[in-house]
């Protein structure tokens, strides 16, 4: 059985984490939430996904791959990535997205930047006992509760917090806390609260995940794509805020005077026009329609085919941060919303 403790408040845990880790947590900024370094403020553990997913802490928007001097061939230096950090209050959906990145950055070519940071990151997850309007994690089985893949797991029990320990690294933190073990009543309360949270999720994907591959393959030429693409701004918000989107560019910053340069990676988005453009300006996804379909189907089917991990975890960010709402008057959601996309495609031609 998983060892579990009962905390009266979070301060004792946070203080203990801060001794060994740089602690990132969801912090409130003008009513929205951001994963930032936790200093004096209070971490927010109620359910509201952060604008940017925590992927940026493990795979920063821009990161140095290496510095080089070009005097006698390439003389290369890679950055140190040994900062021990804790992701405090990461949601179950975002943990599942992180497991997806483990697949993308694993495989035959392991990405040392991802894995160095990943190994130095303590996952202090928080179950969602309340859910937001945009959430549909239950359609994917990626929330609102987390079963595994955490070091520590918090559940807000209203009269305190349940702290479950999921790894030796988590135990090392827990052992320093002078708090009593949780009782049977606490564990059954957690189960009750999560059942209530699940029941309160109103958004449901119309097609079962296992049936999505065939469903989408059969509807590649469905007429519902075009009107959605027509009002898409190709802004890339849906991919930049998506916790499972991993695409990036590699570029170079070079000083001829110093004969020194830096090679970096930078997030990119398949929604941007240049993404699939090759030399001579030829572009294999020049139209918004082709880009919109690529993003939607990659999220909902192709990523799973590539990595056996879902490309959507139902976090709802693309529902909230797609700026298409005012354009699509009368529709209660954004055009990037996977539930809406599937819903439109379910309509018979």
């Amino acid at each position, binding site marked *: 059985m998983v060892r579990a403790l009962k905390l009266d408040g979070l301060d004792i845990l946070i203080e203990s984490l801060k001794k060994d880790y740089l602690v990132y947590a969801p912090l409130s900024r003008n009513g929205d939430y951001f994963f930032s370094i936790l200093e004096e403020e209070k971490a927010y553990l109620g359910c509201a996904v952060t604008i940017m997913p925590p992927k940026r802490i493990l795979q920063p928007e821009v990161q140095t*791959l*290496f510095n*080089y001097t*070009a005097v*006698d*061939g*390439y003389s*290369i230096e*890679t950055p140190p990535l040994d900062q021990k950090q804790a992701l405090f209050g990461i949601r179950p959906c975002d943990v599942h997205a992180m497991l997806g990145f483990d697949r*993308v*950055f694993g*495989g*035959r*070519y*392991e*990405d*040392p*930047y991802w*894995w*160095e940071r990943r190994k130095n990151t303590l996952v202090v997850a928080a179950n969602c006992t309340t859910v937001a309007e945009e959430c549909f994690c239950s359609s994917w089985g990626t929330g609102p509760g987390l079963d595994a893949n955490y070091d520590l797991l918090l559940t807000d029990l209203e009269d305190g917090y349940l702290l479950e320990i999921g790894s030796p690294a988590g135990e090392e933190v827990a052992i320093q806390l002078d708090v009593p073990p949780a009782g049977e009543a606490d564990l059954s309360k957690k189960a009750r609260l999560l059942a209530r949270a699940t029941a309160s999720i109103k958004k449901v994907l119309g097609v079962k995940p296992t049936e999505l591959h065939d469903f989408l393959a059969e509807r*590649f*030429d469905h007429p519902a794509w075009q009107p959605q693409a027509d009002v898409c701004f190709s802004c890339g918000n849906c991919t930049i805020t998506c916790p499972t989107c*991993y*695409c*990036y*560019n*590699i*570029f*170079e910053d*070079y000083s*001829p005077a110093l004969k020194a*340069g830096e*090679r970096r*990676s930078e997030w*990119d988005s*398949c929604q941007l026009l240049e*993404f*699939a*453009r*090759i*030399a*001579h300006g030829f572009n*294999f*996804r020049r*139209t918004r*329609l*082709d880009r919109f*379909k*690529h993003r939607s*189907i*990659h999220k909902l*089917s*192709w990523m799973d*085919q*590539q990595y056996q991990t879902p490309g959507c975890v139902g976090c709802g960010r693309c529902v909230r941060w797609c700026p298409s709402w005012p354009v699509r008057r009368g529709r209660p959601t954004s055009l990037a919303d996977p539930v809406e996309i599937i819903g439109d495609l379910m309509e018979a031609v």
Partner: protein
Amino acid sequence: MKNPYLPMSCVIKETKKETADIKTISVELPDLPAPFDYAPGQFNQISVMGVGEMPISIGSRLDDKTITHTVRAVGEATSKLVELDAGDTIGLRGPFGQGWPLEAAAGKDLLLATGGLGLAPLRALLDLIEAERDRFGRVNLAYGARTPGDMIFTDRFDRWRVIPDFELFLTVDHVPKEAVWEHATGVVTHVFDRLTVDPARALAFTCGPEIMMRFVANSLLIRGFDQNSIFVSMERRMECGMGKCGHCMIGPKYVCIDGPVFSYAQVKALPHNIIAGKGLAA
């Protein structure tokens, strides 16, 4: 953990001008724990310092440590690369990708149909055919270019012509007034009437602009080639070469790790390409 983003420093040993804008670059690899092993049709990510990286097919192996790349100046990085000379240093990481299906090709007739620079990704295979002639049946190389001056590897043509059971068919779109040309004119499919390979026991390998590969594939399908016997080498924007950056994706396939060589049957199931013509919105 090995860092697959880091290029090795390589010194250019020699360069050779092929056409007005195409150059073959021989590069010397550094000392490696194991010999640099690659299959025909694979590519390297070549870095020009201060400019960036580009995917370039691997050509010939000149000796244990020297390999060639043939490059056309089309943009920023390729233009800088063709400006470099013997003694200059480049970065290299690779090899990447799945090359031509050599196992399936064993004992079969081969048709290599290509245009312009599209001959470069077939160069390593042509070397292999020369070195191990018994591995394959009859071989036809159908090679087209805009003009005679746009053909690459012209110094090899006579060597290829004397390979047993090997036919070379050349064609150009257009012969300038001053040029002498004793071969065919017209696009590469025009020479297909003269092919001597047997469609029932041949594999066809093609590389070039997608519109050309579309015409080649259609013409071969009509001549009785099976969709599983036609292979194309595809070009997409690449950044990582390792199935991570997402740029080279066509549907669920990554050109960098699942390709660049795909069968026509595979391409037919993919969106966003011209070869099989599915799902590229106007």
